[in-house]
């Protein structure tokens, strides 16, 4: 499998490490225990396009939001995670999005 890092270009899988679901959001410190359990342990296993976090550790050390089709391993989109999060914070409905 190959991922196209927005900074480094197309690179082989061995340069990246997988973290997991990029749709969950860290709850606030005073959020309920249920919200925290959900964030730490519970994950959906979608069939089809899925947004997930990858780390270009052997490259530019950027965290990336990768949209991957879990059925075909087709990579539909790769973005710099920091930009994704900053944009989310800037948007009016951004805060508190996700779970």
């Amino acid at each position, binding site marked *: *499998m*190959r991922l196209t890092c927005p900074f480094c270009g*197309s690179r*082989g899988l061995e340069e990246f*490490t997988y*973290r997991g679901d990029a749709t969950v959001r*860290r*709850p*606030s*410190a005073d*959020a309920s*225990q249920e919200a*925290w359990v959900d*964030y*730490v*342990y519970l994950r959906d296993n979608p069939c089809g396009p899925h947004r997930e*976090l990858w*780390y270009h*550790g052997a490259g530019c*050390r*950027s*965290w990336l939001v990768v949209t991957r089709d879990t059925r*075909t*391993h*087709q*990579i539909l989109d790769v973005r710099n*995670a*920091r930009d994704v*999060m*900053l944009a989310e*914070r800037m948007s009016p409905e951004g805060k508190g999005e996700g779970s």
Partner: protein
Amino acid sequence: MSAAFGQTFRVKSGNGVDVSRTLHFSFDGKDYTGHPGDTLASALLANGVRLFGRSFKYHRPRGLLSAGPEEPNALVELRDGARREPNTRATVAELFDGLIATSQNRWPNLSFDALGMNGMFSSILGAGFYYKTFMWPASFWERVYEPIIRKAAGLGRAADEGDPDLYEKATAFCDVLVVGSGSSGLAAALAAGRAGARVILCEQDSLVGGRLRDEHMALDGKLAWQWAEQARRELEAMPDVSVMTRTCVFGTYDGGTYGAVERVADHVAVPRVGQPRQCLWRIVARECVMAAGAIERPVVFPHNDRPGVMLAGAVRTYINRFGVAPGRRAVVYTCNDDGLRTALDLYRVGVTVAAIVDSRPGGASIAAEVAAKCGARFFPSGAIVDCYGRTGVKAVLVRDAAGKAKSVSCDLVAMSGGWSPNVALTTHKGARPTWHDDLCAFLPFTLPPGMAAAGAAAGVFDTAEGLHDGAMAGQWAAVRCGFEATLPALPEAEPTSYAIHPLFHALKGLAASKKAKAFVDFQNDVTAKDVGLAAREGFVSVEHLKRYTTLGMATDQGKTSNVNALALLAEITERSIPQTGTTLIRPPTQPVAIGALAGAHRGRHFKPTRLPPTHQWAEQQGAVFTANGLWLRAQWFPRAGEKDWLETVSREVRTVREAVGFCDVTTLGKIDIQGPDAAEFLNRVYVNAWLKLAVGRVRYGLMLREDGFAYDDGTTACLGENHYVMTTTTANAGGVMAHLEFCHQWLWPELDVQFISVTDEWAQLAVAGPKSRDVLAKIVDAPFDLSNEAFPYMAAAELTVCGGVKARLFRLSFSGEMAYELAVPARYGDALARRLMEVGAPFGIAPYGTEALGVLRIEKGHPAGPELNGQTTAHDLGMGRLLSTKKDFIGSRMARRPALTDPQRPTLIGIRPVNPMDALVAGSHFLPQGAAPTAETDQGWLSSVAWSPSVGSWIGLGFLTDGPARHGEIISVHNPLAGAVIAARVVDPVFVDPKGERLHG
């Protein structure tokens, strides 16, 4: 029968063989000659050798079936000694001078094999034999069956020694990958190459051309193989085209990635010094033209496995490419026009064509004309219903259209059941091919992204059409890569016919005993009877059939057998072939040596080695080294007269406790953290408070994972406003860096902070012991003040040492003694160690290794890797009070879960055996004294142990239920592996200087 009487079957100069040079080789101890360009198979055939090996299960004599990588029968051992290589296909083993080959799976020799009688027991070794046998008493299997099967079945012997050769792995990139260099592949490469695309053309053979070399055929009025060579020369002259021969593309992977193995030096006796024997290529291609050709199918008839029964196309290969006639008197058995070419080629080189048996009715093809031309008896609507000759064909029994059987004497049977496109590479990502009745073949349907199939691999069997198909595919591949491409001018080819009528077997109306000798899978000895039996027993799914009979599961992966088996199963179950299904083909398409997959990464170089800055010095000191992750660290420094490691380590520990020692601790992860929000960032990743750490001070920090369990610990020093240097454990250095980047980039992108690793920048040496300050006084430059008042415990400073070398000094202690960590730029680390030895000599200085480091920290009760094992909490580690309640930090919420703070959780304690000499073993379990060792009575575990010279006893650290409240209690330390129980007292984990007075001295 195969005495070396010379190459009496060499009839002419084949287009791929250089008869002007002679090579010498041996097979089963006999000497033979051949020529450059020969394979082991063609050379032996030229010498009249028919018998190549014994079959896997029944030990039946076997000869060559094919002339290519699909060969199921002719598996041999190549070379000897450490380079002995079993199960090599003689059909792809290139001949070299001095080659030693041995047949396998026979005892005592090839023509008389004592286990050939397995054939007599074929009724009990049939389909499902292994599974059924398992149902017998299990003890029978181990004592009786397995030893017999091990001796009887099985293939060659692997070398006993390590592989002496080198292997390599590399990555290649191109616009267009072309797989196969037959007419279609060459045309595709020419079209894409001329358009300017970067092209890689992979050919598994040593020569390009594919069937252009195998057929007697003209292109543009020249011999076809000459056009192939001309195309190769043109391609090689293009700067961005690479023609890789001896390179098999074995797998299709995600993202336009292909696996290929290049046999760099398999065709020579020994690679030249430094040369890899094979290279594993990962080819990244934007487009791929898959033109891997097709594989001919045998026909299933009784005794179709006799040596001398060959595929018709392979016979033509031996004649045209190698100049070898595989027999003197041949019978051609075909269901298609392509098979008839064989009769013409045989006739042309003077081989008697005794008969043409065509399964099609007379007048339905050109067979009658061909028969007349060759002077062969013609059997329209005919079938071969038996075959005679134990170690080589002597005659066949032909049934004519009227149903009358006639014996025809011959020493060669050339059979063709039609051609199966080589679709393997199109199926590796899960797509199944579809059946086409008109071609009697599976053709690719859904292709992996970026791949096109062309030529015979796509069911285009005519040469002119194949050239055009390949050229189109190459052109479009180049266009999709953004090149302007046109169709190249293509050579004129004579029209060829591939009219086919389905023929998979000739068993209609034959007795069951005949079916038991009609082979479907030659390599795994699966017969038509086995397929029938499996179907009757209910294994009607092709996947079940495969597993039950082992059909298609040998090293050839059923290349010549899968379609015939499927057709037989379809017939028995009265379904069509598409209804019956097809099995998916997985990579690799051909066997790949483990050595090639490992590449250069084996033995000592399996992983890279990281050397600390003092490595050269430590080597000169005679240090014993240990691997610590990738790092190679000094474990201890033995001295003359010390009887074992324990004496050495104990001496090193005493030196630190009584005088001064030093140790290279460079391997701890060091991360430089700067930025206006650096303190806030630390405050969020560590459990304790960080906002008020003053410049010039160091603090211990504990990190949790988000689930509340302990992750890593270390110290972080504040070197300036907004400037910190963090240390991590050696094991987690990389992980912590990724964690910090994650927190910064994803969780808190608003924080203004920068990180960079400085692990390698600084050689960091711990100088520990009551005399450490005296030693450092000889190193630091004036006017730096080392006094306890000016530079107390947990102080940090930037300074110069040894007359101007920039340095960092931290007053830290892992040992519990007064201690410092001194960092200098890595290039000076080696010299610093030497200097410490020099200036420390009057104080009794000695280096210590990781083993003494471990003893010192256990004596001091400092948790390390065995305690931070991913299952312990801050509370378990006795650090519950560090957890700030005034801030959010990673793990803060989940660490407050009741179960994680339950006092009943096993908590850090020290352990002292009642008898100080009782050796403790890490991993032992804690039980109340006298309790039976069960899961219910288990109260914790022993994590770290050491012989403590300071205490004069074995000591340990561990986790015990309600531990801190039980100091003084005697418990059982149970090691179930050794069946040992030791009585031990629970004590405070700090064995040495519990008040910490030495730290602050």
